[in-house]
């Protein structure tokens, strides 16, 4: 469960995030849709404690992030925009490194690592050094690394960016599996079809503000458009920075 209340963040004169409020519930996939530069990444960075909001509050499973950032980090599994791996370590070693930093004991670590490697279908590359991995192999390894501590809440920043069709399909299936396990999944995207196909609830963000929020039906009704993509364009006011 994620609750974001009236977040603001400025960089110089630019209001990157200007009063964003929304929440994401357990057992649902919430999509954060917006054109490039709308403030999605900055919102997520505040949520995963990398940046301090100038105003506003964030609660993760009821814990305020400013009061106990380490407790919040344990409840979050994050695939950030930056998803570099250590190229001289194997995929498994990359995953284990983060598991150890989360304080997992060796038995649990092995169990979780094996489970994730299987769930993401990367058994064949697990013992290879990550140098020379394809984009898809890198993202899958980064996701396994982000989820090794079994977090209730999963944040994915543009997870399918730059992936081929096969990898995108695997990843979407994996997100549905996370939802089935009762987790709270929040992912950002500028791809309308992806959001329409996966999300239980959609938060539309533009110019640092939430311009619409609800289920697909609610958004269609709000915009008065039968087609969800038309509804998105109408709500945001432009097609710029979006993708089908």
């Amino acid at each position, binding site marked *: 469960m994620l609750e974001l209340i009236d977040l603001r963040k400025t960089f110089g004169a630019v209001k990157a995030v200007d009063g964003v409020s929304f929440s994401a519930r357990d057992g649902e996939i919430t999509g954060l849709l917006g054109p490039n530069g709308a403030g999605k990444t900055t919102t997520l960075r505040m949520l995963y404690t*990398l*940046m*301090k909001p100038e105003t506003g509050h964030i609660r993760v499973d009821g814990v305020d992030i400013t009061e106990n950032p380490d407790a919040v980090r344990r409840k979050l599994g994050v695939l950030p925009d930056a998803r570099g791996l250590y190229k001289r370590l194997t995929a498994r070693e990359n995953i284990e490194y983060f598991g150890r*930093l989360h304080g997992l004991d060796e038995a649990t670590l092995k169990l979780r690592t094996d489970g994730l490697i299987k769930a993401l279908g990367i058994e064949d590359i697990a013992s290879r050094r990550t140098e020379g991995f394809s984009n898809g192999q890198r993202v899958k390894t980064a996701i396994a690394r982000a989820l090794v501590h079994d977090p209730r809440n999963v944040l994915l920043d543009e997870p399918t960016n730059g992936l081929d069709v096969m990898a995108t399909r695997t990843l979407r299936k994996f997100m549905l599996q996370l939802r089935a396990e009762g987790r709270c999944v929040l992912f950002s995207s500028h791809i309308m079809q992806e959001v329409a196909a996966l999300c239980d609830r959609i938060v539309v963000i533009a110019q640092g503000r939430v311009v619409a929020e609800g289920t697909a039906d609610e958004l269609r009704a709000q915009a008065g458009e039968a087609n969800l993509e038309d509804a998105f364009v109408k709500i945001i006011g432009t097609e710029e920075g979006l993708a089908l």
Partner: protein
Amino acid sequence: MSPWRIVFLKEVRENLRDKRVMFSTFVLGTLMGPVLFAGLIGLMISVTLERGEKPLELPVAGAQHAPNLIAFLKNRGVQIEDAPADAEAAIRKRDKDVILRIPPEYAQQWRDGRAATLELVVDRSQQKAEQTVSRAERLINEYAGQTAALRLIVRGVSPSVVQPVLIADVDQSTPQSRGGLLLAMLPYLLILTVFAGGSYLATDATAGERERQSLEPLLINPVSRGQIMGGKLIATFTFAVASLAISLIAFSLSMPLLPVEKIGMVVKLGPLECALLFLIVAPLGLIGAGLLTSVSAFAKGFREAQTYNTLLIILPAIPSMLMALNPVKPADWMYTVPLLSHQLLIEQTVRGESLVAWQVAASIGATLAIGIVIAMIAARLYHREHLAISA
């Protein structure tokens, strides 16, 4: 396991797998010093021995004008050769180091009791020829002195009348301290090794992580940034100290092979001295690691960090260079200043002088204290918000 140890172990493991790091840290960085050093000393010894022992070969033009002088020179073991036709050209082309030319009027001047002129054709800018030239000059002056003394005695005057002052050289240098002169380079090499040894890892672990976009995910882990920085700093320190140790071992193995005693020097650089030098220099690794990590955290990118860190390696050489150009008399306060105290203590060790316990303790204590302060600055830089933001 505490987080800093997890970070430390990962950095060490990752860097041990990087052939470039291994080569630059443990082969190039550590062995270049001893090899360069042994080579230079070896060259110096062989040149000195060769010049000193070889009979002087002296090309002479117009030898027939001064048979007595030639006989004197031959008597002193000089090998007289015929001079080439164009003496100036031969010197300019560096075919010969020195040529003695005896003008035809020499004999007449000599008989008249006037100062007879000899010409030494030399090129004073040629360092290589210096020793040969001065040997020739010395021998001719000796001949002149002998003749002068004989002429005075014939006239019933004691030769000491024309030598009112005599300089007696009372040299206070010991064989060790002459060796220390030769080893003036050593402090510089050792201090450089300890800085350079951690340089690659420090740049890679902070600026490199950011460039490769892995710092942001790392910092999202529920671990304090101080712990993450600490792990990286200690890994840097470990590499720096390891390369110092390898370098010192190489020194202690290679120095006994050099016949420095043949040129009247004793260089103290055995296992005991090397252990002592390690104890003295290793704390500098903390200052180096702290500075390198701070710079890497401060720089905007990997290239920038690399540039700054390369410049940073030169920094510790400055006291060494100043001391080489303008040696100072050691004062007590100097032993509390890192780099300066290291310069003094290293020199004293290789000269075979006994070290004063409080001076060593002051150097180590001051260096560690300053190292900890710099590490704290690095930790502060790690807490800045934009450190983690890769793009």
